[in-house]
Structures are given as C-alpha cells and as structure tokens.
C-alpha cells in the first residue's frame, strides 16, 4: 500500500482541522496535542480477521459470563477454576456490585482487547480492557479523513468500511436502554479523552453531559435542561471510572460522579455502560485465567491464545519467574496505560534483585510473561521513507443483542525504535486498520 508523504501531510492537516487531539497532564498543566497519525495502514486479510472475529467474540462472551457469575453465585471460584484470592482482593472487584444484574445481563458492552501479532503470524491477546476502553474514535475519524485525502487508496483496494462504529455503539446503548435518553457522561473538558467523548456523542446522537447536569430522584436518573425541565435517562455511557462514579457508593470525595446513580442502576432504571465492577475481569492477574473461563463457561477451546504468562502466586511459576527474569516482562497488575511494565533484560543486577525481592514479598501483585517479539509495521518517517516500529492492535468488541467485532481497530505504534511501549500517554502514535473485504 503506497501512501505519499504529501497525502500523509494532508491527512494530518485534516486531523488538526477537526481537533483530533488527546490531553495529557505535564508539569502541573493540561496540554492538548495531536495524536500522531501514520498514514500507512495496517492491513488484515478477510480470512485472518474472520478468525480474530470468532476468537474475540468467544473471549468477550466468556468474560461477560465470568462477570455475571462473580457477582452472583461465583461458581467458577467454588469449582476452583479461579482462586478466590485473585477475585476478591482485585482492585477491580466491587463488593457494592454483588447481586446486581445489569439490564439485559450485559456487563461489558464495549470491550477493548489488545492483541499483538508475533513474527510467525500468530496473534496473542495481551490485555483485556473492560472498564472504559478508549480510542475507537481515532481510527473512526482517521478513516473519514483518509477517504477525503486519499480516495484512490479506497477505490483501488477492497477495504471494509469501518464508519459503522457509531451505529454499533448506538445500537448497543439502545439495546440496554431502560427508557429515556442515551447520554455520555464525561468528567469534562480537561479529561485526556475529551475529544473522543464529544466526537462519539456527536456521531451517536447521545447527549454529552457532566455529572452536574444529572440528578437522581426516587431511584430514577434525570437530565435537567436549561429551564430546569427533567428528562429521564435510560442509558449512561460513562467515561468515569468506577471509584468516582457515585460518591454515595464509592469514593465520597468524588466531584465528578452522580450521587445515587448506583441506586437507579440497582433498581434497574438505568443502564450503565460498561457495568461498574468490570475491573475484576480485566485485572492482569485474572487475564491468566481467561482461557480457562472459555472452557468453563462455553465448553469450547479458546480460539485466541494469551501471551505465555506465569503467576508468581503459584510456586512453580514463582520459581520460573525468578530463574528467567532476565528474559521476561514483569507487569504490575495494578497499573495500566503501559505503566508498571518492566523488561527484565533492561534492568541492572541491582534492580533485578530489588524486583525479585518485591515479587517474593507480593506475589499476587505481579505477572510475568514471555516477551513476544511482535511484528514491526512500517511507519512513514519525516522524509517519506518507511521505518519499522513495534505495533499492537486494540480490537473493539461490542455486546448488545449479540457480540460483534468492529471490522477495524486502533493500531498503536511506538515511535521509538525497538521500544515495545505503544501507549499514546507515552508518546505512541496510531494508524488506521484495514480489514480487507475480499
């Protein structure tokens, strides 16, 4: 796929025109910057995507079963498939959500599953994001703008149109809506993903609101208009994390949450997308058990595999981790966004010893994984030449009436040669993901 530097510049100019930005807090200030976009797309063949599609649907269905189970009978714990230590001390487990069944029984409506492709072509799941997976708006608008700047790229190739994401999202919201408006709840203008919140609101026709514009009365959530007239809210796509969602239930010091929204949710009067408490299922420690969940709940063999992962919690895995730490990547299960990820190969002997001591002291806090030498994708350098960089793929899986995979995704790449860290918060860029239709 050829893409000229002039076309790439045109696309980036359009990105600036439409304010495709993300925010970061740096040196005590809030800065908005353009998300570096690379015009050379990742290309996934139709057959390859079909396999990914099946595997992702299977995985997300199993994760939804897990959440339903954990917050009710917890049979997977009783049957000793997942040790209870991994569930109930997870930071993502919310005892306040026990025995609440969300509308239509859906917990993870929007799942962001991070994958990498190894050099042998095999795909590995690196992480499940079931709380507030962000990023879909970037490839969505990038495609829109690329079609303007490089129409021939789309007329000459059979690329599945990915501009149906907002429609899929709206259908997902409508499916669980308890009667009333669809709203997107944002912490506000100074949130890193504010562009995404406002863009998705525009595209889905949902209202973008802050907590101060919502109120709960008699366990019903309302939005108040500028003259004080109330309208019932039926579904909230919240972009606020669990602990800040409702100061009456979670953190009392939250100023961005909606007091008593959990009462409305508990009473079945409003859907919260994604359901509170999902963090227990995307905990890095729980990740190890997802293939087991597929077998346990669906009685199927997992189609997609995890990266080889070890739990120092288990004696054998502890020994393996300590013996092989130099070639493993160690992840702190409580961190996210690329933080808390340490490559053993990059540590001095002294730092390795410190890390080993910490793992021995807090085995539940870490997982270790084989470093997957995932493929490099070409990105365009400033002279228009191609240079290889590590890239992953975040696939978006939406669950409403059924579970569907968006035929696209967010391909993130590292801008630093040899680096495996692709997160935007750490300087990574993104590119479009083409799924070929033929």
């Amino acid at each position, binding site marked *: 796929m050829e893409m000229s530097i002039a076309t790439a510049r045109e696309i980036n100019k359009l990105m*600036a*025109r*439409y*304010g495709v930005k993300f925010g970061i807090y740096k040196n005590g200030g809030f800065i908005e910057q353009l998300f570096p976009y690379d015009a050379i797309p990742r290309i996934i063949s139709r057959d390859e995507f079909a396999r990914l599609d099946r595997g992702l649907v299977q995985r997300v269905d199993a994760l939804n079963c897990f959440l339903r189970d954990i917050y009710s009978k917890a049979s997977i714990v009783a049957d000793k498939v997942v040790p209870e230590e991994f569930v109930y001390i997870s930071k993502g487990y919310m005892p306040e959500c026990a025995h609440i069944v969300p509308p239509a029984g859906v917990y993870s409506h929007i799942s962001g599953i991070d994958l990498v492709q190894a050099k042998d072509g095999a795909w590995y799941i690196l992480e499940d994001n079931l709380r507030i997976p962000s990023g879909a708006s970037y490839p969505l608008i990038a495609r829109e703008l690329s079609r303007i700047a490089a129409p021939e790229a789309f007329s000459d190739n059979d690329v599945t149109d990915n501009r149906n994401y907002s429609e899929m999202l709206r259908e997902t919201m409508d499916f669980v809506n308890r009667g009333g*408006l669809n709203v997107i709840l944002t912490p506000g*203008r100074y949130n890193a993903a*504010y562009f995404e919140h*406002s*863009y998705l*609101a*525009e595209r889905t026709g*949902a*209202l*973008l*609101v*802050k907590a*101060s*514009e919502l109120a709960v009365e008699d366990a019903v959530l309302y*939005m*108040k*208009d*500028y*003259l004080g*007239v*109330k*309208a019932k809210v039926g579904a909230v796509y919240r972009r606020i994390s669990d602990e800040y969602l409702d100061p009456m239930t979670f953190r009392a010091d939250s100023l961005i949450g909606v007091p008593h929204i959990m009462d409305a949710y508990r009473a079945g009067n409003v859907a919260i997308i994604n359901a509170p408490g999902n963090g227990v299922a995307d905990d890095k420690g729980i990740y190890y058990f997802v293939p087991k969940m597929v077998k346990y709940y669906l009685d199927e063999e997992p189609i997609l595999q995890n990266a080889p992962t070890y739990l120092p919690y288990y004696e054998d895995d502890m020994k393996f981790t300590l013996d092989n730490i130099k070639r493993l990547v160690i992840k702190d299960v409580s961190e996210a966004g690329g933080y808390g990820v340490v490559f053993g190969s990059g540590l001095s002997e002294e730092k390795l010893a410190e890390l080993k001591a910490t793992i021995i002291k807090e085995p539940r806090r870490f997982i270790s994984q084989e470093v997957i030498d995932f493929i490099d994708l070409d990105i365009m350098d400033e002279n228009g030449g191609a240079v290889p960089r590590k890239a992953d793929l975040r696939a978006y899986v939406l669950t409403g009436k059924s579970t569907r995979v968006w035929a696209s995704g967010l391909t993130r790449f590292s801008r630093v040669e040899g680096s495996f860290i692709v997160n935007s918060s750490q300087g990574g860029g993104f590119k479009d993901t083409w799924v070929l239709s033929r």
Partner: protein
Amino acid sequence: MGTITIEYSSNLYWLGRYVERAYTTLNTFFNYCDISLDKDKNSYKEFLDKLDIEDKYGDYKRFIHGYLYDGADCFTVSSSLRFAHDNALVCRNVIGSEALAYIQLAADAFHASSKEKNPRLSLMPVIDYLLAFWGSIDDKLASGEARTIVKCGKLVERLDLYFRFSYDHKLINSEYEKLCYLLSRVRKGFCNARHLAVLVEVLAIEESYKARLDEVLDSLSRLFEEERAA
C-alpha cells in the same frame, strides 16, 4: 422538553458572543485602520475608548499588533477567538465537528497572520471562516433550539458593539428586530422580561439609546443571565 442543559445553553450563548465579538471587532478595527491610513493616526484611541479599553499601546503600530494578537489580554481579538474555541469545543456534539472546524481554521489563520506584514490582508480568511461557521450553524445544526441560543448570543454581542460605536438607529433596530424574532422562538423563561422591557423602551425613541447607553448595555448583558439564575 429540550435536551440542552444549563451548561450547554451558557456555552452556546457565549460561543455566539465571542464569535461575533471577533468578527465585528475585526471589521470595526479594519475601518479604524483605514481611517488611520491617511487621516487620524490616533483614531485607534477612539476605538479603544468606545470599548472601555485602556490605551496601553501608546501608538498606532503597537496598537495594531497588540490589540490583535496579545493572547494575555482578555480584550484582544486573539482572546475572543480563544474563548470562542473553548466554548465551541465543549459543544462539538451539539454544533457538529464541521462548525467547530471553522473556528479552528479561523484561529489557525489568525495566528498565521501574525507573521505577515499586512494584517488586514492576511486576516481576510479569518473573516471568511467566521462567516462559514455561521453558514454551518444555519445549515447543519439539527437542534433549532441550540441554533436560536447561539444566535441570541451573536445578536446580543452585535447590539452591544453597535450601541458602543453609536451605530445608526435604523441599523440597530434592524438587528434588534432579528433578536426579537429569535426571542419569539425560545421557551418561556429563557429571556428576562424586565431587561427586555428596557430595550423596548429605549429603542422606541430614536437616539435615546445614546443618552441611556450604560443602562441599555447593562440590560442587554443581563437579557438571559438573570432569568437563568432565577
């Protein structure tokens, strides 16, 4: 029942005001620049005086650059555009990405013009983009209520500036009639009846607004605020 919250109504209203402030002050500024070419080099002082802005510039050339581009001064065109953008950004889902993009383009063209020798020429695209913004609002904004609010902001700002610059009574009346038309389309309770009555009274008599300028500006600025607060 509308779907515009208090915050949106405020953002939309101020979006209209700041876009109009940038647009009308730029045009008025151009007029004063023109006068300064071959007549009075100090005419800019009158311009500042009408806007209740202190002359911290000292001379015409410093005024031109400072009044346009000083982002630290909240009275400059640069600040008006920034405030317009701030309000537009939080209304993207209401006004649409296209309308927001015109504000972004206006701001970009404005900042690019600061490096040019002839600001009047290089600022012309800014005017074009601001007009395109209004075209987008007229053509694409789905919510009639939102369109009315943003245009109320525009007309309040325009009237404010026309009053300050002692524009012709007929011209003011024509803008006022447009505002009345918009007010007839908003829901009861949005507009403050008491302050509207002041405008009605003052504008009924030609030239009377000059004698009661402070009063009319005060009522104009509170035409929506108090009612919303109440």
